[in-house]
């Protein structure tokens, strides 16, 4: 069958292009312009070249925030992805349980980020919060506002509570798209549960997992609201991540030039990691198909 090509269809993409241009490309260009100037307002500005980039690259507080961010995002992905797959595998496939599970799983995703932070702020408090009270009752010393490790665990658990559902829903959608014939063939071949997972379910979930991992990576790498509400970046700087550091620089100190340079470096890190991840996973998929 001959494929019909009609290049006029590209005009249909024009509205999307215009929206992206206004919402993303033009602001990004402005950030690039700001990053090479000492800027007070658009009329009062001085060209400084790459000075802000050098300053940001040599900033040890930024290095610390980057390390914290990498550890945080790594922890989030290491917990949420396997947990999401495991939960998706245990969900019912038919009956009333499907709808009930979908609604329950979607609930955390519907809560605004600052509300999630507030919920966990109260939940984790030993005096009025259920979580903090129970942990203290077990004889464990827990105070997320004073102990950095407690703050870290609380921030990670909060994110897992908030976002694992997304991975579950994506994986469940991937699992539901597998035709029964695959399972029947596996059964005839006497495949074990592990073999079914490894050679049928996991490859079939690949594309949704790519989306899930990319979304979770980008979102956790840019996380701001929840830790800001829960811990305010503390105790000390122990839960200050890159976006909090950037906001402090841009809005708190009004250092627009260094903040713009930092934003570009931040953007490049996310772009590189996403591209590498996407390329590796998609190439692995192609190799498996061959």
């Amino acid at each position, binding site marked *: 069958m001959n494929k019909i090509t009609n290049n006029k269809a590209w005009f249909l993409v024009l509205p999307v292009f215009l929206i992206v241009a206004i919402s993303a490309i*033009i602001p990004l*260009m*402005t950030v*690039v*312009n*700001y990053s*090479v*100037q000492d*800027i007070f307002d*658009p*009329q009062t*500005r001085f*060209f400084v*070249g*790459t000075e802000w*980039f*050098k300053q940001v*690259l*040599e900033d040890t507080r930024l290095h610390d925030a980057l390390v914290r961010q990498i550890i945080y995002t790594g922890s989030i992905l290491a917990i949420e992805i396997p947990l999401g797959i495991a939960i998706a595998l245990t969900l019912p496939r038919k009956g009333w349980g499907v709808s009930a599970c979908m609604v329950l799983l979607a609930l955390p995703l519907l809560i605004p980020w600052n509300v999630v932070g507030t919920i966990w702020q109260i939940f984790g408090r030993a005096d009025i919060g259920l979580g903090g009270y129970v942990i203290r009752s077990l004889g464990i010393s827990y105070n997320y506002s004073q102990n950095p490790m407690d703050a870290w665990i609380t921030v990670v658990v909060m994110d897992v509570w908030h976002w694992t559902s997304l991975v579950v829903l994506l994986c469940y959608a991937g699992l539901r798209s597998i035709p029964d014939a695959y399972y029947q063939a596996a059964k005839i071949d006497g495949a074990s549960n592990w073999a079914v997972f490894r050679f049928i379910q996991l490859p079939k979930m690949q594309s949704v997992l790519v989306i899930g991992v990319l979304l979770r990576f980008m979102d956790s790498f840019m996380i701001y609201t929840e830790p800001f509400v829960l811990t305010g970046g503390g105790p000390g700087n122990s839960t200050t991540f890159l976006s909090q550091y950037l906001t402090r620089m841009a809005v708190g100190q009004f250092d627009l030039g260094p903040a713009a340079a930092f934003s570009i*470096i931040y953007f*490049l890190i996310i*772009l*590189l990691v996403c*591209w590498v991840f996407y*390329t590796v996973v998609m*190439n692995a998929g192609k190799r498996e198909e061959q």
Partner: protein
Amino acid sequence: MTWMAWTPITAVFFTCIILMLIGMGIWQTVSPTVPRRGFLPLITTRGDRLFISLLGAAYIHLGWLAVTDAALWIASIIALLWLVCIMRWG
């Protein structure tokens, strides 16, 4: 456009990027790209190689700023060589 705080250097930079994209679009229309495998460990189209080149060029400049105080135009020459290598043999 004053609010965008343009400088001559950033204007030239973005003009080059836009011209590059227009050029690639015309090139694609005249002679459609054929995915191939060069020294990079993946099959790439012309657009993929341009993206890799530009991303690499950005990191070359950042790396240069991070490790040395020498003139930045040296990093630009390295980035240009990188771009040529990726586009031709990548």
